Structures are given as structure tokens and as C-alpha cells.
């Protein structure tokens, strides 16, 4: 068993897979930089290499197919060190077995990747449902999110296709970066101030559109009026909208 230390990037992880074959290390313990505890054994530092990463990424597509390929990336976005280990073990496993083994759910790594990809996908879908834009006075539609997994890269296409004629910004408070669409392209952005849900005093340059308060009030009104009191079922309600997501939801704000 050899210890590899990588920087936590996707390119770094793929490079680690490459190195394990190059250096003939069939078993690798993958550690995240800054979290190493191994003081005595051999530690190999992995520097992300775009060419090596690209080769591995193509290889995964060849061995695991389109869905396996996507699942590999989705599972990576969980940002979970345990999953990182599964990912490198999974890659080594599918590269050393003939085609089809990427669907052998009897293998613990295959199953772990598939299950984690499923969880990340569900979180992506929840963001597509629960994001609530607020409109600023300069016409930017702005939303803050705090997802369990790093799903911003996965929602870009959905929001770009749907909201093609309005500028928007979705900002992940937890990971401190956002995606911004300027009517032509989507770019990653980092803000140098801490935005808040109501955008008011802390965002020095952002003020709300005149009608923002009205439409948010109308939405709350609608949400209340479309409920059928005689059918109240809070258990089902909470099952569909777990409390941790209420922070996004305009209709769940008080008042």
C-alpha cells in the first residue's frame, strides 16, 4: 500500500489514477493535501497533469460508458474523501477487468460510486427546483444556495438553456463561488463581499428591483391560497421539502 497525496481537484484525482499504473502501484491510499497523517511511510505527491488526466478521463468513458462516465464525475462532486478513495479503486478495478464490470454492483466500489452519484444527482435536481431568484435593480436575477454537494457545475446547462434572455447569478455560500450568466456565456465568479439573502446593506452595489417585494409577496399569497386545508398532511409535506431547504424558499419565509 502506497500513499498518494493530491490537491482535491478532479484533474489531480485522474492524474493519481494515471500514476498508479505508471508506477505499478495496484493498491493506493489516496489522501487529501493538508489532511496527511502519515509521517513515516512513503508519500507520493500528485501534481495535476492535464494530459495524463485527459487520458484517464477518456479511458473511463471507454470502460464505463456514458453513464458510468457521468457517475464518476457526479460522485467526485460529493467532495467526500471516502468517495475519493472509492473513485481511484473503481478506476483501477475497471481498467484491470474486461468491459461490463463497471456494472457489477456486487463490487463495493462500483456500488459506492453508483449510490453516491445518485445522491449528488438528487441534490442537483433539488437545486433546479428550489432555487429562487431575486431581481436586482440592474436586472440581475440572483440566488444564494448552500447545497450538500458541489452541484453548481451540474446545473449550469439547465439554467443557461432555460433563462437564456436574463442575466443571472447563482452563488454557493458554502463553497464561496458562483456561476454568472451574462446573456452570452456562463462564468465562475467569486465575490469579495458576503452576500445575504435580502441583499440589502451588505451588498454595497446591489439594490432590489422596485417590483421584487411585490412578486415575492404574490408568490407567498399564491402558495397559501393553493393549499387545501382539508387535506393537510405535514408528514408528506416535510418528506418533499426537508427543513434544511426552507432557507431558499421565498414561500417559506415568515410574514
Amino acid at each position: 500500500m502506497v500513499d498518494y497525496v493530491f490537491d482535491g481537484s478532479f484533474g489531480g484525482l485522474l492524474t493519481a489514477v494515471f500514476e498508479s499504473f505508471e508506477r505499478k502501484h495496484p493498491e493506493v491510499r489516496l489522501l487529501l493535501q493538508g489532511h496527511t497523517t502519515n509521517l513515516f511511510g512513503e508519500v507520493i505527491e500528485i501534481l495535476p497533469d492535464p494530459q495524463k488526466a485527459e487520458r484517464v478521463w477518456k479511458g473511463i468513458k471507454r470502460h464505463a460508458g456514458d453513464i458510468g462516465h457521468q457517475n464518476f464525475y457526479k460522485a467526485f462532486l460529493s467532495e467526500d474523501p471516502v468517495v475519493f478513495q472509492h473513485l481511484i479503486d473503481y478506476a483501477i478495478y475497471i481498467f484491470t477487468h474486461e468491459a461490463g464490470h463497471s456494472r457489477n454492483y456486487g463490487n463495493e466500489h462500483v456500488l459506492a460510486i453508483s449510490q453516491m452519484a445518485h445522491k449528488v444527482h438528487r441534490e442537483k435536481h433539488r437545486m433546479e427546483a428550489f432555487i429562487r431568484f431575486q431581481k436586482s435593480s440592474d436586472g440581475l436575477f440572483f440566488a444564494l444556495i448552500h447545497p450538500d454537494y458541489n452541484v453548481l457545475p451540474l446545473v449550469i446547462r439547465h439554467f443557461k438553456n432555460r433563462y437564456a434572455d436574463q442575466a443571472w447569478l447563482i452563488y454557493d455560500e458554502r463553497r464561496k463561488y458562483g456561476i454568472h450568466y451574462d446573456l452570452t456565456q456562463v462564468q465562475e465568479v467569486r465575490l469579495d463581499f458576503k452576500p445575504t439573502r435580502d441583499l440589502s446593506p451588505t451588498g454595497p452595489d446591489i439594490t432590489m428591483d422596485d417590483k421584487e417585494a411585490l412578486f415575492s409577496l404574490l408568490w407567498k399569497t399564491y402558495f397559501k391560497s393553493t393549499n387545501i386545508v382539508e387535506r393537510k398532511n405535514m408528514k408528506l409535506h416535510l418528506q418533499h421539502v426537508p427543513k434544511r431547504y426552507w432557507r431558499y424558499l421565498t414561500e417559506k419565509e415568515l410574514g
Partner: protein
Amino acid sequence: MREERIQEKLQILADAAKYDVSCSSSGSNRKNTNKGIGDTGSGICHSYTEDGRCVSLLKILLTNYCIYDCAFCVSRNSNDIKRAAFTVEEVVELTMNFYRRNYIEGLFLSSGIFKNADYTMERMLRIVKKLRLEENYNGYIHLKTIPGASEELVTEAGLYADRMSINLEMPTEMGLKLLAPEKSHEEVRKELGIIRNKTLEYKDGYKLIKKPPKFVPAGQSTQMVIGATPESDRDIMQTADEYYKGFSLKRVYYSGYIPISHDSRMPAIGTAPPLIRENRLYQTDWLMRFYGFDVKEILNDQHPNLELDIDPKLSWALRNPHFFPVDINTADYEAILRVPGIGVGSAKKIVTARRFGKLHIYQLKKLGIAYNRAQHFIRCADSPFQLNEKDPSRIKGIILQNSQSKYMKSQPNQLSLF
């Protein structure tokens, strides 16, 4: 928009529209190709109300003024309630602003009938046209057809809507005549027929025109109110079956009647809506659409009503012991699909997985079937040998004992330890 008035209108016209249960926003294929706004796809539930129902569309009436006096309807002419009407511009502005904020997948527009059917339908058509042609809007639109509207208006609306629907209201003509003498199923059939025929026409013309226009791409649906009139479950599901087949409907919705009137012909105000019955009807609907059951196998002269304590699939299985046990390793997909506790997903997995070797109990459990339920009806590689087949009433007892019904949760005098 005057703020207070628009808020009051929204209150009134959302409240009046909420008894239409469809909230589906899937099944259409409209893409945002013009760099406008919006697209459709597999549908998204953006929120859920406290009754546990999904909120996907802005579901409103254009107006709740109505010339009709249907006894089951909250907007009936003789009901003393606040009335309101949106302008075309107001509906468009609400839809666009809700959509742009990612509150909704689209608009569900219905209406009471003011003046006459065509006058109302024409207004609704103006709204969808304005959305599509002026606002460049490609999101979902579900449009209710107004009973009695002309073929020209209905056909034109089909060019802009994703889904259209018109409600049967009551499961039988007799029930409808009892509570809404001005309406008829004949009229519903006429309107459904217009869209069905036009859809077929476009389909046939597909080879002639390179890019035929989209015409009601998410299909048609209808709704029946359950429990307002004394129809049996067999009456209800036979009607559903007939309309699924005759008009290629995408969905039939069943809406448990919530008493809104002191009319002595219907359940009194305060009577709980028939939620379990409604659930059993939806289960039957699924069995017909996805499980290969014919309606007559589930509901017939001997069994005109569904059992409330067990689901219709289990009920069928217990009545047909000769069909079981089903051998998981050799039976057809269709037979496996009929086993209580096995759904479409696990039936498919079983058929795929058994190619690599005989399936055992532990594997079936892992595949995600409800084994506690299914075990009484199947054989697999290591099923325990049984001398006597258990009798159906015993199986029912065992299953009921070992399962928790979501409807039985509030048992009286049950002590909680924690």
C-alpha cells in the same frame, strides 16, 4: 397592477382553481430555441403545499364568475362568494415574473364561464398567444378547454398549449346530470375528439410537412370528482378505461370531493375527503396503465368496489391463488409484474439479473422488492419448501399484521416510549 387588488384577485382565483388536481409539467418537448425564455422537459416540482401536493404550475382561473350552477363547484353561480377576474395582461405578467424567479414550471389556466363559452375561450387564447408570441415564452402551459367552445378556438389554442384538458366532473352521465344539468359528457367527448383528431392529422401529415407545428405535445387529460355522487369504483374505472382508450388520454385524475356546499344531495360540509379511496383508484389506474391489468380483472360485478384495507394488486392476487406461486427464475416479465411487492423497476431488474444465474432470496431483497409481501406469491432458488399452500385470508392477515399502513398511523391509545 394595483398591488392590493392584484393580491386579492390572486387569492380568490388560486383558491378557486385548486380543486383541479393536475400539476403535471412533464411530457412536452418545447425547447428554448429562440434565445427567449423557458423550456420544458421531464417536469419539476418547485414546491409542495402543506397538504403534500406538488406545486409545479401557477394554477389559476381567469375568472370565477360563472353562468353555470354546478352543485359540486365552488364557483357555481348561486354560491355567495367574492368574485374576481384577471385581465389578459395580469395573467401574463404574473406568469412571466413567477417563471423568471424559478417559482414555477409554467401556467395552468382554467376559467369560469362568463357571457358564453367562446367569449371565455377567446380570452384564454389571447393569454397563451401573448405568452408565446410576444414574451418569447417556451415554458409549460396547461390550458383547460371551455365546454362548448368552438372548434376553431380550441384548435388554435392547441398550437400554443402543451397540454389541454376538459373535465368529466362526474364519473357517469347520470351523476353529472344530477348535479350539473347544464353539462354533459357528450360535450366533453366532442372537445376531446377535436384535439385527438387534429393530433392524428398532424401526425399523418408528418411526412408531407418538414417541420409540422407543435400541437398539444403533452397530450390531453381529464378529471373526475370522487365521492360526491354514489357511483361505484367500477363505474369510475370503467369510465376512465373508456376515455384512456377512446381519446388516448395521458392521464385521468381522481379528485376526492371536499364538501363545499350545504346541498343535501352531496356529503355535508365537514365530512372528511375520501383520501384512501382516492389513493386506491390511483393504484388501479397505475395497474391498468403500467402493469398490464384489464379493468375487469380488478373491478367487476362480483367486486364493484376496491377494498380499503389492502391495495388492489394484493386484492387481485388473493382472489386468484391459482396464478401463484410465480417462479422468479423462469416466469415471464408479465407474470412477475403481477406479484404483490414487485414494481416495474424491480421486475425489469429481475429479468436482467437472472441471466447471470439463479436468483436467491438475499438478492431479491437487495434488488429492492418488498420481500415480506412478495414471499407469499413467489418461488426462487432457495425458497423454503411448503407442503400446503397458505390460504388467502391467512396471507392477508399476515401481510396486514406485518405492514404499516400510512392511513393507520393514528391508532387511539397507542403509547409512545420516546
